[in-house]
């Protein structure tokens, strides 16, 4: 398990591993927002939590098709299936590696991008908290989508179409935490809902992903 995590992290950090792509995408999208809606501070302040959450979600989506496709291409996915690791555990570990290399940098970068979008001061902490709680869910749901589309050539778009609807609850509660937080309201209810959602998908999705992967490779 540990070996798999270290291998995936090492691969992500080596040339061609795609580390930083999601982060750069997040940065670019957020930068484009003031250009498209204008520099008016009150408007930016109002839309900042939603825009940041949407940007993080899309940045996460961008790297999902690499989750299993590369392992399928070079044959290591089949070899992992014959290895003594339980497939559910292996997929959970791979999702964790994805979160560490994609989700976590987004979480850490978000408060800085919040400044660019005039996010109100108390909102930064709430934004950080909501992304930290919400992005693991994006990674494990994405793993399920990747397992579902793994055998399909150029399945990237299909993967996005399948995964985006599943991201909706996380997006709603995550953005709501950030919005309430930045408006100075009590954000604990959506935060608890978000945490609950994440815990549920982290517990269930590895099993679902392993089940569809076993079916798909047969």
């Amino acid at each position, binding site marked *: 398990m*540990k*070996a*798999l995590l270290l*291998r995936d992290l*090492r*691969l992500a950090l*080596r*040339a*061609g*591993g795609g580390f930083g792509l999601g982060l750069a995408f997040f940065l670019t999208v957020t930068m484009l927002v003031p250009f498209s809606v204008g520099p008016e501070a009150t408007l930016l302040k109002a839309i900042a939590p939603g825009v940041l959450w949407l940007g993080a979600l899309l940045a996460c989506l961008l790297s999902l098709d690499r989750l299993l496709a590369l392992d399928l*291409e*070079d*044959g*290591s996915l*089949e*070899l*992992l*299936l*014959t*290895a*003594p*690791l339980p497939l559910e555990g292996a997929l959970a570990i791979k999702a964790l590696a994805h979160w560490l290399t994609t989700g976590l940098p987004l979480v850490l970068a978000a408060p800085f991008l919040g400044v660019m979008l005039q996010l109100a001061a108390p909102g930064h902490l709430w934004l950080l908290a909501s992304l930290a709680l919400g992005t693991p869910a994006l990674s494990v749901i994405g793993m399920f989508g990747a397992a579902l589309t793994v055998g399909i050539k150029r399945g990237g778009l299909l993967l996005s179409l399948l995964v985006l609807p599943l991201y909706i609850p996380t997006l709603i509660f995550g953005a709501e935490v950030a919005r309430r937080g930045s408006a100075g309201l009590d954000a604990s209810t959506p935060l608890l809902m978000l945490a609950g959602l994440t815990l549920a998908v982290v517990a269930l999705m590895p099993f679902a992903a392993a089940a569809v992967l076993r079916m798909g*490779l*047969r």
Partner: protein
Amino acid sequence: MKVSDLSVARGGVPVLSGVSFALEAGEALVLRGPNGAGKTTLLRCIAGLQAPLTGQIEGAEDRVAYAAHADGLKSMLTVRENLSFWAQVFGNVNIAQALDGYALRPLADRLAGTLSAGQKRRLGLARLLVTGRPIWVLDEPTVSLDADAVALFGSALLGHLTAGGSALMATHIDLGVDARVLDISTYRAAPDADLGASDAAFL
């Protein structure tokens, strides 16, 4: 390991039926048959990568080390890193024997992506040595190997068999190892045989 009355399908079409054989410790069995006879499908089935239509496979679970056309190498990891990863997955730490067995030590710090096809294949086969599994299930193990590398593979195989392991291989060349031959073209399934190979599970 014992296989009895096995039927397997590829892409929903039954290719083999009624396959039965036993593989004892220390024994090698070579599958023969023309292209498309179902060698790969049978091997995948025994490795647990696909379910048989009918029949039983006994004593294979968690004892098989499988090697197919793809070697499962990460091109951005070095030879040593690739090998240690698989060693750790299978609960071993010692990769020295595998490096020496396939003369990989001079290449140990090269990225796997920069190796030639034959060198990659040697690395793929060296992975078998670090799994510690008793049954090797090999699909065309000698593809892209030169004569010297085939000899290395032959001696690794011999070492595995003398240590009480066994091997099931689809190969067309002589490895210099005593092996029983099983011609699987005699088990060809009737093309219209209905063994439940359709997508009934999804309907």
